[in-house]
């Protein structure tokens, strides 16, 4: 397997693991956190910040999520999903721009 394919394959395995691997949060909750879309109000501040303004996450964001019934293990998973999701979108955007620039259509 070419080296670059190994990088992409390792990334795909990471994404697949957090979305579909064994976890305490439902697959639907994880998919929403990954996509930073349709997040319940209790999680909205935390997940939105992890995706777009990670330096602004506070203790209060975790406290609000816990107060609405999310366990620490669920929050561990959902925060990771949000981080991996945003990074995956950046990776895809970069590869798509490269494919356009080279006219190869294969990098994306």
């Amino acid at each position: 397997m070419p080296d670059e394919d190994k990088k992409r394959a390792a990334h795909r395995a990471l994404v697949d693991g957090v979305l579909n691997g064994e976890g305490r949060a439902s697959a639907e909750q994880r998919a929403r956190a990954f996509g930073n879309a349709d997040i319940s109000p209790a999680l909205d501040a935390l997940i939105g910040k992890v995706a777009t303004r990670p330096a602004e996450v506070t203790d209060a964001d975790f406290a609000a999520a816990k107060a609405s019934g999310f366990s620490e293990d669920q929050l561990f998973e959902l925060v990771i999903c949000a981080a991996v999701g945003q990074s995956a979108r950046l990776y895809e955007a970069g590869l798509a721009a490269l494919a356009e620039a080279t006219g190869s259509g294969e990098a994306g």
Partner: protein
Amino acid sequence: MRLDVLNRGYGPGTKVLFALIRVFSGHPVPDAAKLVFYRPGFYGARAKKFTHEAMRGPSAWSVADRELMAAFVSKVNESAFCVGAHTATAGQAYQDAAKVQAVLADLESAPVEDGLRATLRMLGTLTREGTVGAGDMREVLSAGVSPQQVQDALAVCAAFNTTDRLANAFGFELLSPEAFEAGAKYLLKRGYR
């Protein structure tokens, strides 16, 4: 860290390992290391594999260049822990800490080659704005960077956009300069596996 499970939720074997690391390194176990030991089947094992592939797998970029990219992306994300860790690692890898500091202070005037500068500029745009265009990529390619190198840089960018977010969200505790240097030595010797 902001979740108690990440501070205390480890099995006996992992606790022994952490104690050994403390004794032999003379420093506390970094939160970045603790995170990948917590329920590794969910995230840690695959994250280590991807990060190692991006940072230490075959590439026309040197390990030092990739560590500099990690530090630079972390600076854009304002992740103090990751900036500290990868500034130290890039500085040791180049054997030139001043060069790394110059890039982080002002990319445009820093003493690096044009291809690396153009690549860092593109990674900064992508990280800051969430997207890049074909025009951004053409600038990188015209500075002499190969498409394969761009792909390799994007893998580094993906790995650190994940780690930076987790460092900030979970609240990784900053280390002393000596502990960051010790961690850097470990990362250059062993990588991310």
